[in-house]
């Protein structure tokens, strides 16, 4: 039976190392299957977070051969097995143990974003009217499963650790989802520019590249928000034109 070797990070925040595990593999296996097999047969104390095994819960985020990926969606026949497959925890968040990181910072960030605030209802019964064509844009961002792979790969957080100044791509598209909602009436642009640090994004598109839901994070989310910030704060001619042109 075919086997493959996996180099898995073992350790805590203070110390750790990569350990090699060789395990049998079969057709259709994903990386998470191999990790579970190793956990069952060779390393019962291996810490790994997982839940749905279907790419919808966003729990099993890790770095596979250096790229942030969901372990449950990475098939073994998509990666070279002639060399050991390296599996390590996300680097942008504090390590708890082995492959498990503390992603609670993301939930704290989410609380700081201004909530959905609908305009006055369109109908006397308190309901609103909207067209599907107008909802298509924000609906793309609702596909997000909050795996935080985009946060992990973003170099502003990963390399520069600017967690206090930048909300990261996940929350840029969350903000875009609210801002582009046809019945939302709140204004998040001042926050985006100042406390949420949209100017820190330098559009490397790494977030888009790793998104398991294929959301166009940069082109459809972050850049349109940047353009709205330009409208408000950096385009005097445009403001003048809109003031007199309606």
């Amino acid at each position, binding site marked *: 039976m075919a086997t493959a070797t996996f180099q898995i990070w073992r350790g805590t*925040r203070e110390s750790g190392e990569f350990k090699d595990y060789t395990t049998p593999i079969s057709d259709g296996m994903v990386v998470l299957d191999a990790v579970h097999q190793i956990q069952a047969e060779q390393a019962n104390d291996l810490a790994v977070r997982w839940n749905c095994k279907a790419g919808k819960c966003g729990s099993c985020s890790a*770095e596979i*051969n*250096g*790229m942030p990926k969901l372990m449950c969606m990475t098939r073994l026949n998509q990666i*070279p097995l002639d060399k050991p497959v390296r599996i*390590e925890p996300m*680097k*942008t*968040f*504090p390590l708890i143990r082995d492959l498990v990181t*503390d992603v609670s910072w993301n939930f*704290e*960030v989410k609380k*700081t974003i201004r909530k959905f605030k609908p305009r006055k209802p369109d109908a006397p019964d308190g309901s609103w009217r909207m*067209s599907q*064509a*107008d909802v298509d844009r924000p609906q793309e961002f609702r596909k997000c499963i909050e795996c935080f792979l985009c946060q992990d*790969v973003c*170099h*502003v957080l*990963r*390399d*520069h*650790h*600017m*967690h*206090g*100044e*930048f*909300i990261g791509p996940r929350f840029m598209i969350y903000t875009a989802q609210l801002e*582009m*909602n*046809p019945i939302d009436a709140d204004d998040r642009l001042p926050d985006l*520019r100042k*406390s*949420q*640090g*949209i*100017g*820190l*994004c*330098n*559009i*490397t598109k*790494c977030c888009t*590249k*790793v998104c398991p839901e294929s959301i166009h994070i*940069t*082109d459809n989310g972050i*850049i*349109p928000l940047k*353009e*709205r910030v*330009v*409208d408000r704060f*950096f*385009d005097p*001619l*445009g403001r003048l034109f809109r003031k007199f042109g309606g």
Partner: protein
Amino acid sequence: MPQIDVPLVQGRFGATSRPATWWIQPLAVFLGLGAFIVYSTWAAYQGAFYRFGPYLSPMYSPELFGSAQAWFGPKPAWFPAFLPFSAAFLILWAPGGFRVTCYYYRGAYYKAFWADPPNCAVGEPRKTYWGERTFPLIIQNIHRYFMYLAVIFIGLLSKDAWDGFMNWPDGFHVNIGSLVLLVNVVLLACYTFGCHSLRHLIGGIKDVMSGSPVRKKAYDCVSCLNARHMRFAWFSLFWVGFTDFYVRMCAMSIWHDWRLF
């Protein structure tokens, strides 16, 4: 904003678990953009061989001052003598500025020329980072103004392409050069009309577009081109350089401009 109270590890420059080939993509961008910058600077400095028959090199169009066919005649007397004169210098800043501030190119050259980051999930050489929120890179927000100029250039280059077919002494021609100029303006139009700023201004600025079918259609068209923005950025960049080279080779009588019909 919440902060993480645990110190995270700063990776050293180039640190990554990615396969050893991660540098190929930024190197290709570096070489591609670098080659164009070198060639276009050299071509702009020449100040000669940019016209052949009805053809005008896109690096010199519109020709404001320079030859007898220029809009305002030969080199003006007020032009400072200590500065090198070329008709290209007077106009290249506009399409150059459009490309330099383009969202696609920004991401590409930050990686390839400034290693910020060198590639996705690869360690950076510097510890400090300002991004585009302070000087100098906050100037990138000027992109939409360059976009307005770029749209005007599409009109001017369309006229050049038209002349390449219609403006021969004996009437209508289809030469290889006519097609080169036509492909040039088509690729540049596909690049310019897929601009992120244009996409925003034409419809993205609105949360509700369903009530304006023309606006919605225009937004969808720009979005369609925008999805291929990177591809058109590279194709049009290469073709601008090739068009200048073609006109130059014909003007120097090194290449023959074949007539098809």
